[in-house]
């Protein structure tokens, strides 16, 4: 079983469109995992029907028991996040501001504070009209993506791929360079980078490449909207060659992408004659990367 992780450094480069198009090509031999949970939009192109959902727990929040609170105010005094305020029965925690650091919990002289595990979202296993399963998650307001959630989504996808006897897992990876992206990349057999010809996209990608190199994962790259700045596109291609990253394709800016998204489809569905050969070739190339 081969795990391919699609990343872009920063959002907005068309990564989701590429993942959806490749999923359409590979349809019956893969499981798709949406680990870009903060900007989870694959479901708009996959129209998933959840067949299983699981609550996701992450972090804690402090809760003050009004019956036990001695109103000494020590917790409010020490809280660095201004999350504790006076109330009728002494003091109470403002849930939206509480960071779950537990300082107040350790501090309280009468042990009036408890820590409550937070249900911050759900993880779904869904059927899609593509013919492949989609594993995705939804986070509640104020909850952030984490290495833990990414690991959970990938874990479910791997288990599914085993039971459904699929050869590939395609992961829509997290942006940034922190825990979620480390978790996205960790265990990957190949990385597909999707970038665009802008200076900021290129510098974000270079930073991410440092991490990918440390993990020694073979990588390939697609340059999206390549024709909007040929000079930078050429610069990126030179860099790719220098770094030993296989350049798979240049995709010119095309209205089909926007049209497809508006219709809730992927671009191969939208204009099969034009895009099927393009993405079929890309998929064949990715499968071979080692």
């Amino acid at each position: 079983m081969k795990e391919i992780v699609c990343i872009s450094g920063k959002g907005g480069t068309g990564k989701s469109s590429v993942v959806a198009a490749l999923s359409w090509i590979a349809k019956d031999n893969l499981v798709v995992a949406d680990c870009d949970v903060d900007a989870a939009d694959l479901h708009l192109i996959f129209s998933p029907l959840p067949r299983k959902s699981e609550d996701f727990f992450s972090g804690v929040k402090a809760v003050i028991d009004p019956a036990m609170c001695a109103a000494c105010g020590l917790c409010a005094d020490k809280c660095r996040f201004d999350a504790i305020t006076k109330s009728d029965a002494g003091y109470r925690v403002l849930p939206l501001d509480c960071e779950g650091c537990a300082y107040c919990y350790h501090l309280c002289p009468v042990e009036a504070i408890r820590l409550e595990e937070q249900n911050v979202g759900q993880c779904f296993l869904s059927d899609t009209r593509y013919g492949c399963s989609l594993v995705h998650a939804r986070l509640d307001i104020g909850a952030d993506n984490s290495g833990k959630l990414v690991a959970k989504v990938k874990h479910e996808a791997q288990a599914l791929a085993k039971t459904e006897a699929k050869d590939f897992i395609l992961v829509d990876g997290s942006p940034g360079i922190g825990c979620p992206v480390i978790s996205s990349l960790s265990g990957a057999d190949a990385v597909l980078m999707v970038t665009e010809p802008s200076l900021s996209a290129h510098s974000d990608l270079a930073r991410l490449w440092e991490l990918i190199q440390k993990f020694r994962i073979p990588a390939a790259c697609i340059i999206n909207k390549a024709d909007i700045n040929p000079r930078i596109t050429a610069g990126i291609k030179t860099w790719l060659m220098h770094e030993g990253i296989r350049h798979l394709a240049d995709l010119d800016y095309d209205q089909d992408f926007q049209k497809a998204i508006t219709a809730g489809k992927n671009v191969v569905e939208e204009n099969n004659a034009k895009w099927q050969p393009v993405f079929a070739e890309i998929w064949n190339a990715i499968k071979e990367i080692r």
Partner: protein
Amino acid sequence: MRIAIASGKGGTGKTTLAVNLALKLAESSTTLLMDLDVEEPNGGIFIEGQCIVTIDARRMVPFWQQNACNLCGKCPSLCRYNAIIKLGDYIMVMPELCHSCHACSELCPVNALPMQALPLGTLKHQSLGKLDFVESRLNIGLEQASPLISQALSYADKHFAGHDYQILDSPPGTSCAMISATKTADYAILITEPTPFGLYDLSLAVETMRHLGKPFGVVVNRWGIGNSEVLDYLKRESIPLLAKIPHAREIAIAYSQGEILYQAFPAVDEALNQIIKHIEAAL
């Protein structure tokens, strides 16, 4: 009056609106424009004012004092973020994981973890006529935006409380950075584009504003692309539509060249007038 400009997704025109609205308001009123998109602040592309001050923002992180430490191991058990590890007789602090809660430092029985200031980012304050512009920028490689956003807002509370308007250009999305940026606002303007992605992300931003109990209205940008589902949505949800900004190639080009839009395009100017009228009526 503190107004936050937010969106459920990046790339919908949040900064464009914040900059143009602030500049228009500054024609007659004292206005602060604060760029809180700390990972990628780009409001400064459009504004060239006189630099007043640049502040180095810091964050507090524990620093291990080996000679004071008795290796009791209390600190790793206290830290909820796995930012402190005990390796035999060595205590290692990982600053990127630290949330600056001070628990380990203040609960250490022998005071072996004093807090130390590390670079967090910068606050750059410029002035241009009646406009004060503060750009907050997080240092590269740092993940947590909220601490810098909080410091920027404290700076605004301290120095610009008397201004007629404070316009906050928030980070995109609906995570805790966006909440930090919008929770002290009097009113929020949510900007979206009329596409399915735009509508979905708008619905998340709407949910967030309702959760915060914030009065808000919606501006639809690039009207003309996609479809009109967003208007049906706003009607169903009884959400005020503040203005529609039309999609036009000329506007996109002018924007990409860093130009101020409302001065060149009457449609944009008209949209701003409508927005200002709504806000003043709402408050």
